[in-house]
């Protein structure tokens, strides 16, 4: 018997709902994918470190840490499919101490971001630049998402940008309200993706494809069975149904990745000096292999 595929996902990140669904609804088994959860991680960079250590074959992870890891040569993975697009939001304090009505009002304020070089970092900075706000007029604080709500309540920050379900939780708790969702900032922006170790893909294409088929099936199923999907999300995160329900409104589950989005993102990282790639197109060509995988999946 073949060794099971070692898969990882992030704890409490509803962007990874398709995996939970594929697992609980038996899609993985039905597609003949023998999968083992090799780790539940707290952050994308940790998942990429695990790839570097050879401890993982496939994972659900943010496109940002995957790009950084591959560009910096730490891990060799390829993106095969998208888990979700959009699904983050900019939240401002609900008590209106400082009147923030638009992104432009953030000038001179402080905003929490989940980490430098994250998708959220990119979205916010791009959006601010578009509104004509100079970046050095805004104070960015790196705060881990679970602490963002406390920080916002304490007045340590005036706003935060994070992935769901934290924005939903904040409004659920009455601490903040969503100013703009990430879909409004950049419609259809890529967020979480399904990646596989490049060597594993070459040696075990069938197993990879089985997982991808289950993934597509799960995404489709979520679209049709909203309520049942919510139940599964509640089970995996331990959060209340109401939060999950409102969080899922802005998460757009879609298996097809916008490669242009990744390109835009890679340019952003290069611009900030976090990564150094000369040939962005060549890089994307090697990094995003969605078409070939889809072709193989459809075979």
């Amino acid at each position: 018997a073949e060794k099971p595929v070692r898969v990882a996902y992030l704890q409490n990140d509803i962007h990874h709902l398709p995996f939970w669904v594929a697992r609980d609804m038996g899609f993985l088994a039905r597609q003949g994918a023998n999968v083992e959860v090799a780790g539940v991680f707290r952050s994308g960079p940790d998942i990429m470190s695990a790839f570097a250590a050879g401890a993982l074959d496939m994972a659900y992870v943010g496109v940002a840490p995957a790009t950084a890891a591959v560009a910096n040569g730490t891990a060799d993975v390829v993106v095969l499919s998208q888990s979700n697009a959009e699904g983050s939001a900019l939240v401002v304090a609900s008590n209106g101490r400082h009147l923030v009505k638009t992104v432009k009002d953030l000038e001179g304020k402080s905003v929490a971001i989940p980490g430098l070089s994250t998708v959220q970092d990119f979205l916010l900075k791009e959006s601010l630049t578009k509104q004509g706000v100079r970046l050095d007029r805004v104070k960015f604080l790196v705060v881990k998402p679970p602490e963002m709500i406390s920080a916002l309540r304490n007045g340590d920050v005036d706003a935060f940008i994070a992935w769901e379900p934290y924005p939903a939780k904040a409004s659920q708790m009455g601490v903040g309200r969503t100013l703009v969702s990430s879909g409004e900032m950049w419609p259809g922006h890529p967020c979480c993706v399904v990646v596989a170790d490049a060597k594993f893909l070459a040696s075990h294409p069938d197993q990879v494809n089985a997982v991808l088929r289950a993934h597509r099936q799960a995404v489709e199923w979520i679209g049709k069975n909203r309520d049942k999907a919510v139940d599964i999300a509640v089970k995996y995160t331990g959060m209340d149904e109401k939060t999950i329900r409102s969080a899922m409104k802005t998460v757009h589950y879609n298996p097809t990745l916008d490669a242009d989005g990744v390109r835009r993102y890679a340019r952003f990282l290069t611009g900030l000096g976090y990564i150094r790639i000369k040939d962005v197109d060549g890089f994307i060509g090697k990094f995003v292999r969605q078409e070939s995988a889809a072709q193989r999946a459809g075979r």
Partner: protein
Amino acid sequence: MELALNGMPPGSKLLPHIYYSLARVGWGFSLAVAIGVPLGLTMGWSRRVRSCLEAPLELLRPVPPMAWIPISILWFGIGNKAAAFIIFLGAFFPVLLNTMAGVKSIDPVILDAARTLNAARRTVFFKILIPATVPSIFTGVRIGLGIGWMTLVAAEFTGVREGYGLGYMIMTARDIQRPDLIVAGMCVIGFVGIILDKGLRVVRDRCAAWQ
């Protein structure tokens, strides 16, 4: 407060959390003792071994266990090996340093006495050095277990395979914004820590009654 009993990622009961955490600490800590004690004995005993290893160890010592997390994932992948490694790092230095200090603090007259009783160098090592160092080893082991246990949360930060662990439980409680469960988790950690320490003290009082 003891809602924690209902399980934190709901459905995950308290006992397996404790069990998995104990297993991780157990591995890392045992490794620290298994390496730290013999190494400490030889480093205390032989000036040559000491002068070789002292400098690199001194540089590693003040590096926080947390700073090792990325490296440990790189080396050991995820799951128990990486967690045990972080805990090992926390527990190793107190065990090593106390064992070394114990060897150095042996009254030289005791060693002289053994030599005038015609004990060979080997005999001195096994029959004098080791028993005489036992109390210091225990001190180191107790501190090491304490620090190892304190490193637990950091270690479970790296991600856990089984979905169980006290540190993981606290992280989950944090994710879903339940301060009460965080505090409950902290109490459990404090409590288990006290029990472990009490246990070690009992063992020590058995083994080092002559002190």
